[in-house]
């Protein structure tokens, strides 16, 4: 049995709920016979992937839903084996090049060349081109992005590329200028309510307005999260009435604990304690940026106004360093020490000034 998020995911442009204008654009582009390379961008859970899927269906018909999932092996220049999951239909192929880490260029080159040098063998195909969907395009290395540039121009006659990313900041200008940009904003609250109502109706449950309200508030524009929470709540309390508590994920509670530890005491011993907690989080594969942001946010809720900006400033500062550097823990820890000393200093100065 599949999850509601998957089961009630719109499969065609007609079924998409919000951003009607965007939907119409996609529909007319698909019909125009003049489909460009595209870049879908927007926050997680806003519905980029869903929209791409619907657009593919509009382009190629139901055949595009007959998927084959393979694991393919590519060789890095140093002959290391790279295993990549490849999802494909007769009309398109979907990969997440970041699975290959720093060797994403190899994967992109091989896949694109392969597609570009082949042609649609299905004579009844509605389009003469095939589509390559590249997920997490914003984590493509510079190298891989460079490899895309000219290819996008050269093989336009039988291939289109659809990039899917959270933001366009990390994409080099030559790539952006070769794509039609499609911004997919997170749905607003009314729109989220509508979708939740639709899902509730489809599974034949009653969704009380208070419950819906709570879910929407909790999910911050992330539609996927909202539907997952709805399903989870339904398991918890079948009629969705009474006081509902949306369980925070464990890692989030854990991050909040870390924040509390930092605010309660600033000492070398406490730094050690916090470090152990960071290791724990990292070993559960919580991305270090998420850890840093969650802890920092929580701290800002608990400190004096004058410190908030500083806490976030150093979070921003150490987050970049963490990306450039190798050992995530070093930078997380450096940030903690920084915050602790700011905090101490703040109280120290307050003490002094109270003597004036």
């Amino acid at each position: 049995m599949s999850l509601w998020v998957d089961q009630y995911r719109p499969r065609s442009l007609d079924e998409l709920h919000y951003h009607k204008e965007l939907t119409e654009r996609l529909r007319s582009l698909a019909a125009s016979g003049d489909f460009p390379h595209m870049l879908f961008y927007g926050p997680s859970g806003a519905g980029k992937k869903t929209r791409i899927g619907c657009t593919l269906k509009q382009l190629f018909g139901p055949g595009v839903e007959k998927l084959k999932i393979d694991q393919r092996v590519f060789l890095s220049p140093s002959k290391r084996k790279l295993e990549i999951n490849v999802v494909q239909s007769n009309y398109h192929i979907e990969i997440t090049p970041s699975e290959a880490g720093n060797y994403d260029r190899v994967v992109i080159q091989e896949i694109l060349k392969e597609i570009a040098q082949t042609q649609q063998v299905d004579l009844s195909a509605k389009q003469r081109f095939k589509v390559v969907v590249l997920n997490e395009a914003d984590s493509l290395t510079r190298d891989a992005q460079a490899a895309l540039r000219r290819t996008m121009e050269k093989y336009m006659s039988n291939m289109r590329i659809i990039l899917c990313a959270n933001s366009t900041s990390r994409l080099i200008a030559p790539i952006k200028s070769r794509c039609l940009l499609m911004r997919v904003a997170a749905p607003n609250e009314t729109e989220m309510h509508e979708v939740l109502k639709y899902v509730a109706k489809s599974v034949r449950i009653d969704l009380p307005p208070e419950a819906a309200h709570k879910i929407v508030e909790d999910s911050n524009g992330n539609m996927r999260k909202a539907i997952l929470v709805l399903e989870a709540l339904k398991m918890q309390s079948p009629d969705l009435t009474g006081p509902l508590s949306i369980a925070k994920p464990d890692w989030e509670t854990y991050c909040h604990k870390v924040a509390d530890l930092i605010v309660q005491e600033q000492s070398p011993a406490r730094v050690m304690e916090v470090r152990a907690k960071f290791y724990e989080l990292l070993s559960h594969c919580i991305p270090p940026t998420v850890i840093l942001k969650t802890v920092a946010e929580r701290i800002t809720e608990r400190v004096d106004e004058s410190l908030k900006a500083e806490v976030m400033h150093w979070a921003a500062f150490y987050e970049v360093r963490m990306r450039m550097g190798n050992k995530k823990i070093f930078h997380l820890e450096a940030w903690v020490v920084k915050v602790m000393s700011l905090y101490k200093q703040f109280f120290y100065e307050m003490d002094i000034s109270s003597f004036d």
Partner: protein
Amino acid sequence: MSFFKPQGAAKPTQKLTADPALQPWVEKYRPKTIDDVAAQEYTVAVLQKTLTSTNLPHMLFYGPPGTGKTSTILALARQLFGPDNFRNRVLELNASDERGIAIVREKVKNFARQTPRAQVVGSDGKTYPCPPYKIIILDEADSMTQDAQGALRRIMETYARITRFCLVCNYVTRIIEPLASRCSKFRFTPLDTTSSAARLEYITRAEGINVDQAVIDALIKTSSGDLRRAITYLQSASRLSASSNPPLPITSRDIQEIAGVVPDDVLNSFASVLGIAVDDAMDVDDIAKRANGSFDPIRKKVKEIIREGYSASQILSQLHDLVVSHPTLNARQKSRCALVFAEADKALCDGADEELWTLEVGLRVNKAIS
């Protein structure tokens, strides 16, 4: 088995040659001769001479994207060799090709081995100079490794008699000196407004679409001298307008949306939360909120913007423009903001978190001007 059959296995390739109506306009309107190349007068004049003298130096084209580098060398090669000989006389390698040293050497060796034979009159009845050498175009050469570039130097020497190299890149400083010094350098500059406008108007006429001056202005403004971008935006806008029923006229707002520009009202409301006075009066709400600290309202605004999916680098560049040209902020305030913008740009290029850095920019600009 893969469904991707090798080319030619299924049916003649002919069927797939691009239908001009469906061709991307950047390809369709790629200059056919070097005379079609807009702006870049100096380069065109010099290359024009090489057409008559049939003597060509090694060349290095450099300049920002979409200024005509690739187009110029392709046009030149076509004018030198004509359509029949183009294929066996010109080798184009770009960053999407595997360009390790060994591979470049192998390709060039193979290619250079077949001594060029002159066949001057093309099947189209025209006469071409057809000089006795081959042209090897290394597009996007700045993404070649130093080692590969070093090896290239040797290759250039070995085959000097029968080959001419044309290196094309964005940053001339990324080409190693010994290589660069062997080439005549041609700098391509961002297209000036008049040339861009003329080229765009030429295309709209050829395509039979109607756009007003505001649209052309928006295209030029959003593409900042990159004609490829301007043409792509124009084509996207025309696709969108033509495919709606009934066709809608293209507006400058369409162009902005296609180019990913943040709308003025969004940017202005961000600026006003940061305490920058903008045209439309600040709403009272914001001022009231600022009374008990600016942190929360700024953070709230940032979250809103991120939810809308706007990109941090786009916000940054537009906020920069707004601050720099702001009528009432003083020089000191602007300078302090400049420091923040520079840091943020670097951070975003290094892949920093968008939300953290949009917030950082907001908070520090707020501090810098208060």
